[in-house]
């Protein structure tokens, strides 16, 4: 029987939530790695029992954990993330040069074709890859080295590489995004890179049309149309129909176009979801109402989805890696909040119910659809 496994990373450990295809009764296991920050965990599309998790604390640094049994047991694998060559400097908040320093892994993206290959997006921003199931990591240094690296500057959360999208067409195309440098694309499996920020406009930087410096929060793609990208920028929801070569704003009638998450329906490539957040200084939903907005037109026209979500006195945030969709016939949508709730919808957002209410602050949510 089909089912789903929801992988939740929190400020104080990881949790695994499982259900059958009806998605109305849930088993909650965890915390795994109690007391550690779990920025992200994700399963391999090739082998759903192969999971990778990013585990860290300010005290003891970064660990990477691997599971071969769907999260029941874990083993630490390699945690040496050494920048290639002399790492040089990027810009600090005040514009002065600052040495590149590894801090943590924000995002793990398992390969679409090989369970032993996994990519890691790290702070300070760089992309690493392991081809031995996480035992060793090598930087794809062409990203930092493509030329604009010394001009990259951290966002408020640090200079993190938080989004990795692998083009499923097999052409070696990879998209990544960095706060606050912007989006980048490789067409040769990560060897060389180019910024893809044309059309983004950011009032926070002196040259609003600059090649880099944009605070991209998240990018999403539907696997059937890998050249169509949707972006939640610091402010503005954007789309690209040419693999990031150009972007158009599709914020439309959203109550605010600030936010962190964005995702695409599993079966409808023009149906996208965002959670509007009031502003960059007030990281909670407008009017204290937690509303997910859905567009069935690829942007511009949005409808609020509220059934089952708190519509008063709600002041949580939904962080950039904390929304995901399953691929069951009736697409499920999931998101986690900084208040520790994980909400699930088994009908593409029409109605919602919490799976759990009182976890630590949720940093990431991923979903595996199990057959």
């Amino acid at each position, binding site marked *: 029987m089909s089912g789903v496994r929801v992988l939740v990373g929190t400020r104080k450990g990881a949790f695994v939530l499982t259900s059958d295809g009806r998605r109305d009764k849930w088993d909650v296991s965890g915390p795994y790695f109690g*007391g550690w920050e779990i920025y992200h965990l994700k399963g391999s599309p090739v082998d759903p029992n192969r999971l990778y998790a990013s585990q860290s604390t*300010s*005290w003891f*640094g970064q*660990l990477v954990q691997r599971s071969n049994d769907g999260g029941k047991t874990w083993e630490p694998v390699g945690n*040496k*993330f050494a920048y290639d060559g002399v790492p040089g400097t990027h810009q600090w908040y005040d514009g002065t040069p600052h040495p590149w320093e590894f801090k943590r892994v924000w995002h793990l993206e398992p390969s679409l074709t090989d369970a032993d290959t996994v990519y890691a997006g790290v702070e300070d921003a760089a992309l690493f890859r392991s081809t031995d199931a996480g035992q060793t990591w090598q930087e794809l240094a062409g990203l930092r080295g493509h030329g604009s690296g010394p001009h990259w500057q951290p966002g408020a959360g640090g200079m993190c590489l938080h989004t990795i999208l692998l083009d499923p067409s097999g052409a070696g195309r990879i998209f990544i995004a960095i706060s606050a440098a912007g989006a980048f694309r490789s067409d040769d499996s990560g060897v060389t890179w180019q910024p893809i920020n044309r059309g983004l406009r950011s009032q926070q930087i002196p040259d609003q049309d600059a090649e880099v410096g944009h605070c991209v929060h998240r990018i999403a793609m539907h696997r059937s149309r890998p050249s169509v990208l949707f972006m939640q920028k610091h402010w503005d929801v954007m789309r690209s129909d040419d693999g990031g070569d150009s972007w158009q704003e599709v914020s439309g009638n959203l109550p605010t176009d600030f936010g962190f998450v964005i995702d695409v329906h599993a079966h409808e490539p023009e149906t996208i979801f965002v959670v509007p957040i009031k502003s960059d200084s007030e990281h909670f939903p407008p009017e204290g109402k937690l509303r997910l907005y859905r567009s069935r037109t690829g942007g511009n026209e949005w409808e609020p989805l509220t059934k089952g979500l708190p519509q008063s006195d709600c002041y949580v945030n939904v962080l950039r890696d904390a929304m995901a969709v399953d691929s069951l016939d009736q697409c499920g949508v999931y998101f986690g909040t900084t208040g520790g709730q994980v909400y699930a919808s088994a009908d593409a957002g029409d109605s919602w119910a919490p799976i759990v209410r009182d976890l630590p602050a949720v940093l990431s949510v991923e979903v595996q659809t199990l057959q």
Partner: protein
Amino acid sequence: MIRVELPAHLRILAHVAGEVQLDVEGQATQRSVLDALEARYPMLRGTLRDHVTEQRRPFVRFFACSEDLSHESPDAPLPEAVASGAEPLLIVGAIAGG
């Protein structure tokens, strides 16, 4: 034989309870003790000192014999009471974060 007490998170990670006892080659220093510790428990590599620079992580402290040894040279001899096993080397996660 050197006795080492790990912070709780790292005891869980290393699957140990209580003190760790290590045989250390040559003079007992922070570096030689950490080398022996990481050789016995490879999962601790990178948690106490940086992989590349080998510098102590900022929130990791080394205490022994009622003294803070955190700022001693990694190659300075540890107190004789630690070297002899009479006293443990305490590896402590600093109180930070409120």
